[in-house]
């Protein structure tokens, strides 16, 4: 019962970020916008992902869910 989440972050996609989120698909949209997409099983996993993003000090500009 997973939901697809798209999370937009306000930086370019570097190799480091790609490997930090190796479980997600990462696409660079512009020099200061990257989209991370993944199938998230439940809220707990989503919160964990958001915490990982926070740990890296990255700002989130948008989150979208597509069940």
């Amino acid at each position, binding site marked *: 019962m997973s939901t697809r989440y798209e999370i937009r972050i306000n*930086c370019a996609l570097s190799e480091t970020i790609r490997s*930090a989120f190796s479980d997600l698909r990462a696409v660079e949209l512009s020099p200061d916008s990257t989209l991370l997409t993944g199938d998230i099983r439940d809220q707990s996993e989503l919160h964990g992902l958001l915490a990982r993003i926070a740990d890296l000090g990255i700002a989130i500009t948008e989150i979208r869910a597509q069940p």
Partner: protein
Amino acid sequence: MPKTRPYRVNDAIVLAVPPIAPLVQSRPRLALSAHSTVVTEVWASAGAGKTTLLSLWAHALQADGEKVAWVGLPSGVGSRPSLSTLVDEAVRRSLPNPLDTPVAAALRHADEPMTLIFDDLHHLRSRADSEWLLGLIREKDPSVRIVLAGRFPPSSLAKRSLLPDSVEYRSEDLAFNREEARQFFAARSTTLDEGELDAACERTGGWAAALALLAGWMRGAPRPQRLPRNFSGDHRAIADYLVSEVLEQLAPAQREFLLTTSVVDAITLPFAVFLTGRDDAGDILDYLESHTSLVSHRPDDEGVYTYHPILLSYLRAELRRRDFGGFAQSVSTAVTWYRRNTRADLALELCLRCGHTADLAASVDEAGASLVFEGQAELVVRALAALERAGLRSTTTHVLSALVSAPYFPDELRVDHHLAAAAQTLGDAAVSIRLIHATLAVLRGADAERSTLLNTLVAVEAEVPNAETLQGEGLAIAAGDIAQNAEPHSAVFGDAVLYDAVLFSRLAHAAAAEADDRVDEALDIVLDAVRSSRFSSHAWLHLILLDASSTVAARQGRWPESAAFHEEMATLAGADGPPTNLVEAHVRFAVTQAEFERVTSDHLEAQLDDLIAALPLELAPGVVIPARALRYLQRLDAHVQPRTTIDDLDRLLKAHGHAHPGTVAFCSFRYVAAMLHMHDRHQAKQAVDLVTAELGESSLESVLVVALYNFSTGRQAMVESALEEALLNPHTIWNGTTPVFGWLLLADWAEISGRSTRADSLVVKALEIADLTQTRRPFIAEEQRGARLLEPRIGRLGSHDVFARSIVGAAASLLPPGQPRMKDTAYFTPKEREILRELPRHQSVSEIAAKQQLSPNTIKTHMRSIYQKLGVSGRADAVEQAEANGLL
């Protein structure tokens, strides 16, 4: 009392003021509130310099001779000490002389000023802790200053806005402005020209972590006044960019060191040496600490080194990218270290974080059962899910998958599947695993197979060394050894998990005995095991055995003993944070339900909401459904939107009643009564049918609701005597409160029909039963009908007088303010109910009479009766009152 695993303070609970790292500059712009009555709050995201600011304040206060206590909350789930315990410890550590009063008292009446700093409060989850903290802020001595800090204010502290003034600093406030940034670089012997300073401030946004990295880079850069190449051009996340620049500058040995050690969150020197195989680990760590901002070090206790969290995240990603093989090797080495040092939980967490399934499988095999018995089911479940996704199944993973849902087995098909899969490869498994499997098989098995399964269990037990000590006294002797604190388990069984598995297998023997109707024997077996598990260090196991004892006792109708076990469970099932395993959840619910029945809790709704919120329905229907039902009952009693509530309860029972007969049982009386009050007879009949269908026609609950339904009909006399008969010689009783409701109903009817003496003796009967378990709730249900029966009788109830008074007191305190109680006989006859429904419409009496096909005088008589029952004197008031009571 079983010891829960000792929570080592180095596991990130900080109870002392952290040392100030070198080169930290003071920030006079950001000052602590001048008056200690004003709370200072700092809420800023990671890397903003929050903790540094707090320790600056702390050190300044200490330099002025003031006492400072510091509590930094850890992030883990699972049991940890309560906030008040942590504060106790922190305050004690901050004082030179030992306190002679308890800390709580000292904070309320302080002799000298002191400051309490709370860091990482975003980890605050437990309601009990939040309430405690708010209480402390309200009641502390004015000279005690409080500082609250974290990444974000936890929602449970939302009420703090009701508290006295506070000063709040947020990320923007903590960001370094231009002047502060200049000083920052100057302190690191770096001067930038204006253009470079501008670029630095703009690109980093004044974010402390990034500035630190930038300065670190400049320290090592060939021409220190130049900014890193592409600094203004590159749009990678700033910390990401800077970390790679800094790493470029390090010598290969140091880079290698960082690579290997960044896999873990915190290292001690011995661990670092083990992990890297380098004797000079200490030197490298010190170098890194002084030359980069990547390492810091807490000199208390064991000298733990940590990496800055933001940088750590980037480090890990960066290093993983650079050298995957080396990274994997370090993880394995770290896992080995953890396992050798009996920290299987840290090993599992690390494997899960790094996705190392091979190491994960080995750790689960070795320590999974032990972790489950300890109560860390949540962690094991995550590990099992990861292994499942990787296709790594083994006998152990199957057995553990079944074990974590014991003893309630909410998903029966899945449990059976795991047991069957494990059965195929059992031969090679360890004795403890086979023992657990055999136990689960008995618990899940159908009646017909039980004796075969039991024989299998006995056969496995025979393989346990010192098998003769498995019986009664033997277990107690072993327990005595354990209480001596000797290397206890090995004295008897040589294997701690084996001992726990043996205790666990008692459940199977008890279940088999009960199924055979040897109920006394079943109770003995399980009580025996409970006594022994008191000494085991594994709280989950003890809880599960207590729960079984309670259930067996209840099934035998031994309510007081069952209640006593609940008491013990209540003291054990910690109230901190969400439950981490099913048993804890069930126990918390049982405790809450007991408090509901005894009317002893002030914050019942909060407790129930917590439980319901903490567990998804699929995972724990056995807790969520009854908890929701209880929540509705509590709302009914408190008169909160009675109409909506009864409809919600109706839907819940119709949807889930079949799978949860116990819930139907404890709701049965109020469900039918409320349906009768607020809906029509047809719907009430449906409710009665639901109860009889799920609980059986001959159950006391069914007899009771049938009686209720037939009040003031031609069948009343018949059902009345049927009920009395059933109360005296019950066939089946599903719930211990039902007899109390039964006697109260009979007493009420006796009272209504003027048979006051009979009512007296019936009331006493109700009290007798209720007193055994201090059950007050049935007297308060239903407009406090029962309590009203008690009031005129106080003083004439002999030994039950005290209890009766406590009931009346509890009833009075629960009454919503301004809510007049309905008059004595609040039961409306069916005809009265129909007429009541007509009242809001603007029809004259003759119109109603025509509709009802009765004479206007009859209608008026009914209306008078309705007014009297509602305690009003006019039609408009009647409508108002009826609406307030949910009748319309």
